């Protein structure tokens, strides 16, 4: 039997949406290939939560648990999964395509020597291996890539639906970590609190994103106010991050974060390729821009040709 593994990301006691939706990406392929899908989770205090973690509809759950794994750094997750994979040799190991998933996938690939393909949109079986599709160059080109029968993939967020919690009984396997505490050469020393406020763009359902069209740093307050009214996270184009209007943790795009919220409102963002690639999977895209030829309008669902300095105050007032 073939084995497909999903490495799940835990935030607090929850498996992130980006991780659980990976089950959807493998569903058809697993049926077709008669493969068993397992969710692999690495962390501390997993035993107590095993029953709920198993309820995502996967036939198999592998938990690697230890107090030493408390901060769940990618360093340890990658190492543990690679170690187990070297013994059990699953055909596919997939992670969500975000900073966490990329780091984990890179480590597994490096340690198992199985090649890595990032940011895939679809997976199918072909010629003793897999064919994956991925967008490159800001979504202008769809690449088809063949990858060998033992591969590591990161899967683009928001492409697949999270399967409904099925009535499948999942087999839970509990494992001890292979890594000794003394082998862990990296630890979180401390966290310096930030002065930025508001929710993170990584998992927000609504994002209000701002660009150069706001003209100056002081006007960013309009974006912040609109975001607050909508309960949204504040996003930013690379241009205003480079101009030091806002911290890079807000940056949307290939060089920042790849996001796929329910609603993305682009204010004064013209839409550079690398920005579009980072947000084009959003469900509804609204673009507000003075230039009717701005590339952002090519992918938007709703457009307003106008000045953000007039439209944003009106939106804030209306909401």
């Amino acid at each position, binding site marked *: 039997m073939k084995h497909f593994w999903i490495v799940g990301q835990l935030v607090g006691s929850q498996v992130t949406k980006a991780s659980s939706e990976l089950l959807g990406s493998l569903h058809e392929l697993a049926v077709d290939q008669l493969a068993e899908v397992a969710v692999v989770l690495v962390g501390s205090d997993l035993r107590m939560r095993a029953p709920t973690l198993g309820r995502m509809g996967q036939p198999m759950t592998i938990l690697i648990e230890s107090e030493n794994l408390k901060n769940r750094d*990618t360093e340890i997750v*990658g190492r543990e999964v*690679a170690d187990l994979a070297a013994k059990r040799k699953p055909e596919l190991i997939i992670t969500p395509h975000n*900073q966490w998933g*990329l*780091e984990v*996938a*890179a*480590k597994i*690939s*490096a*340690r198992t*020597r*199985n*090649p*890595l393909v*990032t*940011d895939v949109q679809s997976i199918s079986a072909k010629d003793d*291996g897999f064919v994956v599709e991925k*967008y490159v160059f*800001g*979504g*202008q*080109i*769809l*690449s*088809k890539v*063949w*990858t*060998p029968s033992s591969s590591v993939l990161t899967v683009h967020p928001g492409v697949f639906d999270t399967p409904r919690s099925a009535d499948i009984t999942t087999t839970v396997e509990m494992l001890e970590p292979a890594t000794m505490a003394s082998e862990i050469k*990296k*630890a*979180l020393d401390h*966290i*310096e*609190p*930030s002065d930025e406020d508001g929710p993170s763009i*990584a998992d927000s359902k609504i994002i209000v994103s701002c660009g150069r069209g706001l003209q100056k740093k002081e006007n960013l307050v309009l974006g912040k106010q609109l975001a607050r009214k*909508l309960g949204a996270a504040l996003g930013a184009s690379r241009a205003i991050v480079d101009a030091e209007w806002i*911290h*890079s*943790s807000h940056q949307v795009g*290939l060089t920042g974060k790849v996001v796929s919220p329910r*609603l993305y409102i682009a204010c004064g963002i013209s839409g550079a*390729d*690398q920005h579009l690639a980072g947000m084009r999977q959003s*469900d*509804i895209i*609204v673009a507000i821009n003075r230039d009717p030829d701005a590339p952002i309008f*090519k992918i938007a*669902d*709703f*457009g*307003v*040709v*106008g000045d953000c300095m*007039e*439209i944003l105050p*009106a939106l804030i007032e*209306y909401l």
Partner: protein
Amino acid sequence: MKINVCIKQVPDPEKFPVGQFNAAGRLARDSFPKATNPLDKNACELALNLSNVPEDVTAFSMGPESVKETLREALAMGIGNAVLVNDPELEGSDLLSTAITLASAMKKHGEFDMIVCGAKSTDAEMGILPAMIADILNIPSVLGAEKVRVEGNNAYVSVPSENGTNVWKVNLPCVVSVTKNINTPRLPSLRGMNKAMKIPITEYTADDLDLELPDSKPKLLEHTPVSTQSQIEFIKGESADEIANKLITAIKMKGVLS
């Protein structure tokens, strides 16, 4: 302190038209003006600041003869040594093979305390090569650093996160990738440029490194340009208030916002 810096030659980001491919379906890299990946200069700057001894810093790169120009830029900034892995057999290496090759070149070159890389390259934006090199060498890595401080046998590395700034403590040797917030790279001086021309660049081939590359690697099958058909609905009105009203109503009709 001995530091290795990874340097990548990229198509000049200022002059790089997107989506140009050669007959093999690969990026037609040769036809573009070349530049040093911008963040790699920040990596050089950090290495020079941490080490203080230029001879202890080595720039590593992989690619054809033309990559020497890029390595000379690093030497002109003050870095003492340069290593180029140059072998036509390695052309078209995927991420994993590139990481294995660079890690092998570093092992061959000698001991080191830290490997510094740019957090991302402008032509392939994933930024995970540093993590792969680290895991191949079985040493820790911290990606996206804004500050690096070395104390004894440890490095304290600051990385911005959702909650603030995470400060990681890692044992040396380690791999660190840096963002542009870490420093301002120095400009090469005229003296530096002259000196750079006199430093010999060490060259390795695949055979020199006893490379054990995977038998099978990902292969590009085809490229299809994506037609972006616009489905946009433009919201118009006499006043900003009217537009705001219509826009929110339209969004609500889609089932978003309650």
